[in-house]
């Protein structure tokens, strides 16, 4: 039965949860498909995550391999295909707890970078799992900065082969997923040398393990890189190459080819490629970044209405901790953030689809803007969501620290997203470079892409709000965000110019302004997120209370951003001290309003108990019973040798025998 403290929260919902779920899914039919996939996966015991928190690294890895193999069978059984509507829900249904994710990256890189002949040879083998692929780019010594990679591929005209080497310790491939134990093949990125000349980084297909007995091929040293904060189920690996010879045909040659005599030929444009790389950044956001924050909010908010602590009114029952303003101030902004980023993610997906169409028609005009948006939002979303999950974790007090709460795993997993697909600071600086360029162009009257036209319209007004209710007007706060974004970009641009004019070299000037540049890029993204949320709300149906509650969340998202960064808004007097007090007042009022719908708002995310895998966050709110039951399953409660071996002599005061 449902805990009455949780049940009562659901009775007072101001909107239809089912309709909101459909909105999040992009339509009720989508919800239906998603639920069917989740149901099929969760009802299959092979995919169970029940013991996950008790398993060792070896056990987690083995389970992930078993699931990956079983998934092939399941897909066949269910008639799901990689192009079908179900496919995109699989990862969510499995909560990512499956091996061979890099196999897909392997296939994608062949499709993108390989010649037609190479595609015809490798893709069928991969599809049938005759081989297992990985993608070996990152090295011990280099990550985001690709030009610095040190692995070499030297062309030998005599044998028509490439000779691959990792010439020093820092050149060793390090981190690629599925490579430590599973992969038989991998795409290795290496510096290409022909006749002693370096041609830069190129991709090569290298077989690393025998297809017969899985032993390592000659010249290959590979293994697992050891325990990490999470991803215990993935065998992130290292790879040393010592004079490994591969045929000339194994260099992926859609864009560059080495001819038999060693002539290097470039062909076609890499721009589409570049675009695809950019899309990858955005494509991971929904499953890897937004889902964990939504799950964390679900767990923390449900737990906060079940947990009662201390009294708010003398003589009454202890209060639900969600009734404390400080608890609301921790959790509700995270909830608003999850919604805000859900909508910005929709916006970006749509923009990228449009971009893809343009690029197909060989129009590359949108590329710089798409690149800047994907870099900036990847950084901003991963950073905010990671921080948000941690806030949820800490808001659950001691019980949040137990793995059984599900929160530590969500946190350690989402944390990695700040690093992979480009380190966040570097990505923000890429966005900043675009902003500065556009700002300069706009100032000299040249046209700029749509997302940055606001940079041209520099206004030096003041915030017109007169009372706290004015701050619930999207125009007022959107303009405040715009003002800050313009100010940070323009002042940094001015500073850069000053430095350069005073004789500082360009790159030094850039490095001296990077802290400000990062702030400008963040402000730009924050502004677009607020604006997009406000515009989305305007277009929503007014029925079933959806628009109203989304408007509250939008206001909260915007005001929370101001409240947590008051300096940026007070600076230069755009917002006055008195107005800032109004912001605070409106912001705190909103907390109490959204509090009433907090549980329905997380219910709308529609996570099953199995997918949350949390003793604190289940739909029925039977928190304490579940915590107690699950704890008893812990291996530490089975017989441990520690008693006989150490405790017994200790207790019997026979220390000297130890």
């Amino acid at each position, binding site marked *: 039965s449902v805990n009455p403290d949780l049940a009562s929260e659901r009775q007072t919902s101001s909107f239809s949860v089912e309709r909101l779920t459909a909105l999040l899914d992009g339509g009720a039919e989508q919800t239906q498909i998603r639920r069917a996939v989740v149901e099929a996966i969760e009802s299959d015991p092979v995919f169970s995550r029940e013991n996950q928190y008790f398993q060792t*690294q*070896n056990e987690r890895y*083995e389970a992930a*391999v*078993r699931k990956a*193999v079983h998934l*092939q069978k399941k897909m066949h059984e269910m008639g799901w295909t990689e192009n079908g509507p179900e496919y995109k829900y699989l990862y969510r249904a499995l909560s990512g707890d499956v091996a061979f994710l890099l196999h897909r990256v392997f296939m994608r890189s062949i499709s993108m970078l390989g010649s037609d002949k190479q595609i015809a040879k490798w893709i069928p083998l991969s599809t049938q*799992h005759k081989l297992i692929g990985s993608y070996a780019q*990152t090295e*011990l*010594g280099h990550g*985001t*900065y690709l030009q610095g990679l040190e692995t070499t591929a030297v062309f030998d005209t005599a044998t028509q082969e490439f000779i691959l080497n990792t010439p020093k310790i820092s050149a*060793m491939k390090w*981190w690629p997923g599925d490579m430590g134990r599973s992969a038989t093949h991998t795409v290795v990125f290496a510096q290409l040398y022909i006749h002693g000349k370096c041609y830069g980084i190129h991709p090569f297909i290298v077989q690393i393990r025998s297809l017969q*007995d*899985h032993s390592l091929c000659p010249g290959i040293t590979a*293994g*697992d890189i*050891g*325990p*990490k904060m999470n991803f215990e189920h993935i065998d992130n690996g290292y790879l040393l190459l010592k004079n490994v010879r591969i045929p000339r045909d194994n260099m992926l040659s859609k864009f560059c080819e080495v001819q038999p005599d060693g002539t290097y030929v470039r062909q076609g444009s890499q721009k589409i490629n570049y675009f695809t790389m950019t899309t990858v950044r955005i494509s991971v956001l929904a499953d890897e970044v937004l889902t964990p924050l939504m799950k964390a909010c679900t767990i923390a908010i449900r737990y906060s209405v079940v947990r009662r602590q*201390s009294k*708010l009114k*003398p003589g009454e029952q*202890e209060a639900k901790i969600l009734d*404390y*303003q400080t608890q609301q101030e921790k959790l509700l902004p995270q909830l608003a953030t999850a919604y805000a980023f859900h909508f910005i993610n929709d916006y970006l997906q749509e923009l990228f689809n449009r971009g893809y169409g343009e690029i197909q028609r060989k129009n590359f005009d949108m590329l710089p803007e798409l690149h800047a948006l994907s870099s900036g939002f990847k950084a901003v979303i991963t950073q905010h969501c990671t921080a948000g999950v*941690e806030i949820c974790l800490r808001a659950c007090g*001691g019980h949040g*620290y137990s*793995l059984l709460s599900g929160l*530590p795993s969500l946190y350690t997993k989402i*944390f990695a997203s*700040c690093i992979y697909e480009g380190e966040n*600071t570097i990505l923000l600086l890429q966005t900043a470079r675009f902003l500065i360029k556009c700002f300069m162009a706009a100032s000299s009257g040249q046209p700029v892409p749509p997302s940055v036209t606001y940079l041209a319209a520099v206004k030096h007004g003041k915030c017109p709000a007169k009372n706290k209710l004015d701050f619930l007007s999207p125009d007022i706060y959107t303009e405040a965000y715009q003002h800050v974004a313009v100010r940070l970009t323009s002042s940094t641009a001015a500073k850069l110019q000053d430095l350069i004019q005073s004789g500082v070299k360009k790159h030094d000037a850039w*490095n*001296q302004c*990077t*802290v400000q540049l990062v702030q400008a890029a963040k402000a730009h993204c924050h502004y677009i997120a607020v604006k997009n949320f406000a515009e989305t709300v305007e277009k929503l149906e007014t029925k079933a209370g959806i628009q109203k509650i989304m408007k509250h969340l939008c206001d909260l998202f915007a005001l929370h951003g101001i409240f947590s*960064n*008051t*300096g*940026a808004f007070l600076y230069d007097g755009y917002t006055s*001290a008195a107005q*800032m007090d109004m912001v605070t007042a409106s912001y705190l009022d909103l907390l109490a309003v959204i509090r009433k719908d907090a549980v329905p708002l997380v219910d709308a995310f529609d996570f099953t108990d199995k997918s949350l895998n949390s003793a604190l966050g289940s739909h029925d709110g039977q928190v*304490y019973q579940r915590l*107690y039951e699950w704890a008893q*399953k*812990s291996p530490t*409660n089975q017989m441990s040798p*520690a008693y006989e*071996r150490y*405790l*017994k002599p*200790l*207790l019997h*005061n026979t*220390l000297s025998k*130890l």
Partner: protein
Amino acid sequence: AAAMSVNADLRRERAAATFQPELLTYILDGGPERTRRRKEIEALVLNDPDFQHEDLNFLSRSQRYEQAIRKSSLMVMKLREYGIADPEEIYWFKSFVHRGRPEPLDLHLGMFLPTLLTQATPEQQDRFFMPAWNLEIIGTYAQTEMGHGTHLRGLETTATYDPSTQEFILNSPTVTSIKWWPGGLGKTSNHAIVLAQLYTQGQCKGLHAFIVPIRQLGTHEPLPGITVGDIGPKFGYDEMDNGYLKMDNFRIPRENMLMKYAQVEPDGTYVKPVSDKLTYGTMVFIRSLIVGDSARSLSRACTIAIRYSAVRHQSELKPGEPEPQILDYQTQQYKLFPLLATAYAFHFVGAYIKDTYHRVNGDISKGDLSELPELHALTAGLKAFTSWTANAGIEECRMACGGHGYSRCSGIPDIYVTFTPSCTYEGENTVMMLQTARFLMKSYTQVTSGQQVTGMVSYLNDLSRQRIQPQHVAARTVTVRINDPTSLVEAYKSRAARLVESAAKNLQAELNHRNNKEDAWNRTSVDLVRASEAHCHYVIVKLFTAKLAEVTDAAVRAVLTNLCLLYALFGISRNAGDFLQAGILTSVQITQVNQHVKELLAVIRPNAVALVDSFDFHDVHLGSVLGRYDGNVYENMFEWAKKSPLNNTQVHGSFHKHLKPMQAKL
């Protein structure tokens, strides 16, 4: 492996330092003699083959627990053998043995024994103390329940006195009343001091402490009526058997209630304790330890991140030149140096709190309790402030190490998971901040009613003086000199005063609206937390600045002054809104502050490695491949990875079990 020489980058860094790191180490330790003794104790442990074991990262939880209990047993024996009795020296010894991690006897040594000493009657001490000292009895302290933590009055375990048998009957009447979390309870302890609501003669007398045997001496099996076990895996604390305890009509003799203060007589008559203020002392002490822990944990993370950033080269700063050390990037300095400054600030705050505690404790034993309330309030706030900041700082250090920071070989994941519970235990941080706020509000009320307040809150006295003048607080002009730490202390003071006043006014406004005090308090609590934070921030800047005057060596003072300025200015930059809104600083000054922060980054850069060397963490204690003193990072990452359990066999078992059959079928 052959001894490798120190990485060239680190050698250069150390040669370029403008001060002698040992001199700074002496300051952190409290004098060269303390440093010498610390190193002596460190050597005792590190050179002892009994304390060696394989890298804990590769062990399962059960194995880690086993290693810990093995080392703990030896530790107790050796401490006695070496005659180490000073609490700080015991702390060092333990910390080196367990490499900064918790251990299963923590609660026995840190809570069970001390509680017997302070709360047991002489007869009870005769019965329990020596067996516990000799580890025939291993005890824990069972306070927290599944349903209640910081809010002690809500605890539900009951102890009902039965005069007919002269026993207490202990019960866990609900699921939520199950004792949950106590360290060493799951597997290690055979006794527990249990906190329960005492019922006698039909009345509840509130929380009292009882000595409860939980496991059979000899077999270590749970006693009838006792259900006990481990609460399962956690984020960290793998070596600790945090446990649960459920009691069903479990009877203990009357003499097992700790009766030095409150008593239950044989007929059930309850005798009230004289004073309960004394328990404040223990809380203050433990929270002051957490402030020190915040400093140490953040220092360890900074050591790792800064050394690694001096070794790692990436990308280009100047076209055509070799890849620079990542520590040369402004963004990297901006991430790490303010944290380094924070670590130093917290060290000095920790030392101040410890000294103050000892001083006030001396007063208490002379019957003078006057300073206790302020110390109690200050320690609560500083515990929360420093643990929150260090918690976030450790994560920033990890993030600054990129992908490799995420590997357990970096050591930072371990520092984080070990440290992060301190935001919750010994008082949940938000609740702690609100306790400080309560004291601030009380002081503010005193001032407005014409009384003077003393100590760290004395700045509130100035508020009433200003109120005589007609102008609004925000219109005050303060001349802030951003190069002068003393002047920055004044700026922080004004900010604290402004936020305390604003919270007090908002609270008053809420009180005028409704007659429920708790409700009004709740509706002001976000403001109240902000006020407490500003107060703590002021105290820290003040203490750091005061420390500078005590430093005699000019070179060390110069480098510490820069760190102090960076700490203060970075805090202003991050909280610019507070200073702008109160009119303490103008926008122009904020720009100057931001600029000066960046200049300080460049000034501190040459001393960065020497500044973390001064923390003087031994490699074994640091437990990090990225943060090694010799900087030979990559070679050792490879050596470390080879030991991973997944690499135990050349071909993993799952190949034969799953992969091969799949390939055969397709």
